[in-house]
């Protein structure tokens, strides 16, 4: 089959109207039309790198600073999870670990893999890669759960001298890291996955 591109057409990504290739903006909704996002991979890598840079301090610095009358404890993400696990709340520890560690790490790996596969003009398992991309894009926002927890705790537990919880520097870095990886995923143009495939009947891309 032919792709829209081979047919000399370009789709509007906003309202899904198809226009001839030369058209610069959608006649229906007015959005600019591109057959492929320009510099998509570049932007993917840039956000990806920014996310990675932020992810390092996010894990090194304390996420949560808990001050009570007698003690003060600084918990990093992993340290906090271990602490929770040590108190016996394995489920919560697991959620924290998955949301704050596994998901971001998997996201970095997945985005890197997708970008690399496009760069390498891979022709393998395009459907699986497409699904991977969709999952990444969907699941990425859940990484913010840790940041929300910190924000809520900080707002709630402010008992002056007795006990107070404050966000540590890692909270900001982690939030930035999640945002940057989301941008990274957003920058990826999934249509690129399909560009180097040999034409096959019954398969097409938007």
């Amino acid at each position, binding site marked *: 089959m032919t792709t829209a*591109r081979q047919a000399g057409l370009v789709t509007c990504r906003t309202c899904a109207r198809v226009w001839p*290739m*030369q058209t*610069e903006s959608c006649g229906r909704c007015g959005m600019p039309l591109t*057959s*492929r996002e*320009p*510099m*998509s*991979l*570049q*932007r993917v890598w*840039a*956000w990806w*790198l*920014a996310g*990675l*840079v*932020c992810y*390092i*301090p996010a894990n090194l610095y304390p996420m949560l600073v808990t001050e009570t*009358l*007698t*003690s*003060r404890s600084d918990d990093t993400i992993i340290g906090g999870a271990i602490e929770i696990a040590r108190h016996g709340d394995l489920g919560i520890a697991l959620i924290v670990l998955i949301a704050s560690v596994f998901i971001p790490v998997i996201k970095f790996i997945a985005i890197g893999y997708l970008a690399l596969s*496009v*760069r390498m003009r891979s022709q393998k398992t395009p459907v699986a890669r497409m699904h991977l991309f969709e999952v990444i894009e969907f699941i990425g926002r859940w990484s913010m759960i840790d940041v929300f927890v910190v924000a809520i705790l900080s707002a709630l537990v402010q008992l002056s001298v007795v006990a107070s919880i404050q966000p540590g520097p890692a909270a900001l870095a982690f939030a*930035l890291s999640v945002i*940057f990886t989301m941008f990274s995923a957003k*920058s990826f143009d999934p249509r*690129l996955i399909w*560009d180097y495939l040999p034409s096959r009947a019954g398969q097409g891309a938007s």
Partner: protein
Amino acid sequence: MTDGFSELQVQPGGGARRLSFVWMVPVLALLIAVGVAWQNYANQGVLIEVAFPSANGVHADETELRYRDIAVGQVEEVRFSDALDQVIVSIRVDQEIAPFVDQQAQFWLVRPEVTTQGVTGLDTVLSGVYIEGDWDGEAGVPASQFEALAKAPLLSGGQKGTIIKLSSSTGLPPTATPILFRGVRVGQIGEATIGGDGQTIVADAVIFSPHDQLISSTTRFWDVSGISFSLGAAGATVDFSSLASLLAGGVAFETLGSGGVSIEDGREFSLFADEQAARQSFLIDNETGGVEFLAIFDQNLPGLRVGSAVQLGGLQIGEVTTIAGVTDEARFGDGRVRLLTTLRLVPSRIGFNGGDDAEDDAAFVDFIERRVNEGLRARLANVALLTNELQVDLFLAPDADPAALDRSADPFPQIPTTAPNVTDVTTTVQDLLQRIDDLPVEEVMASVIDFLDASTTLVSSEETQAIPGEVAETLAELRKTVASTRALVESEEIGALPGEIAALSASLQDTANRINAIVADIEEKALVAQLTETIAAVGAAADTVPGLAKQASSVLSEAEKLSLQDLATRAEELISAAEAVLNQDSARALPEELNATLTELRSTLASLREGGLVENANATLASARGAAEAVSKATESLPELSARLNRLAGQAGAAVDNFSRDGDAGRELSATLRQIEAAAAALERLARQISRNPNSILIGR
């Protein structure tokens, strides 16, 4: 876009030829990260190591280093020294403070502490211990290895003051004992240690600025801890400075005299046991310009020691500085050991210009020499009556053998001496004790004990103990009697008695009147003549008349001495006796019992009254009245009797002649008449008395 665009798009890598602006983001992030990391590293501060004997409560990444209570660092690591004999605490000191942490810096651990001076470090109970550092505000030679102090130094946190040393041979107050100046806390004592000579105890002490200006070389310190109690000629004295210092102890000081020079850090002062000792010490050893003399005493008496006072007219002007024995057969003429003493006299004590210069000293020696020429001598004397402690007395002995100050004596001028003024109190006291011992104290004691035993037996016997009860009973009975008497007297029935008696007496009066009238009648009708005539006639019968008259007379006299009077007298006696009894103190001591008794008595009397006693009395009186009336009736028959007498007289008329010769009968008759007259008069007197004071019969007054 052109056709070439599609070509371009087919090659995704082609986009790489132009750089996306998005690359700014990771670059910026990287820059910031690197910047933060570098700044962190640069601000990391300086790592120092402090060695503690033990690190109780010190935790890595938790324990703070504080300077003036502000955190300026944090412990990074706690480990042992190589030989395991110390704990090395690595502390990361803040960058801006680090330069000041130089060689002079001191570190110690602050933990809660409870002493008599109060509670310190209370905040560390919750927050955990912290390490306090102290250093001055000037950067010095940097250092990174320190030895921690065992306790907080006396001066820390920018406090200013003067550090002195206090020494004592007996003991010092505990650490942190306040130093008080007239009750105001101006410093404190540090930890006491044994001095280098092993004899004294030395402690650092600090006087905080600006109070350290109070300290000079003439300052004396003394202990005001606890209570001092002394018993002397002036009475007993209990002395304590303040309740606070009584509980917590304290050291007081006073700068005595003037002329002290300001002191340097580390000067040593003695701590005296009390104020008196401190002042005493000041008098002698603080005054400069002592001039030394020799004195050799013939007697080698115990009790003189180095430091003993030298007095001139009761004023201490110096002290004994050395004591030695001396034998010099050639010089003294015998081999006895004599007492060689060196006396240090302080000229300024007696108004001389004390000074170090030799001129003043020479003037003082001249002065002593003149005085010696006038008779000044040294002798040993008792300090106090009962101790054998001696002092050296300089006194004017007018009758002393001439002597002079021996300026040639070596090494000091020698003051002549004289016989000691030492009372051998010991002997006297022994005599006294012997005499006391000889007293038959034990015999006396034995008999006293016997006496006491006997008394105890007597007192503790049941009979003796029963006496008070019996007395009380007796008194109660007496009281009862008196009260019943009184009640009887005061009862209405008795009150009515006088009236009845008055009536009785009236009838008696009446009777008497009638008797009088009869007698008058007899006299009027010249009965005497008729009687005289009759008497002769009645002859023998008349012989019996005198006897009858006598009987009547005696009856009447008896009646006169009626027992009523007697009863009244006895009642009076009884009453006064009862009063006397009641007036006794012992009786008064029983008012309550008596009260109770009276109450009982009243009820008894009430019952008695009900029981008819008074009625009986009334009845008696009534019968008395009856008797009186009978008497009255009897007297009514007297006219008849007189008529009969008249008749008798008439009938006797003839017989009178028979008697006329016999004068005896007339005499007897007239005597009879006189007796009758006397009887009538007595009756009259009684009647008068009763009518004048009817109560007298009853109460005897």
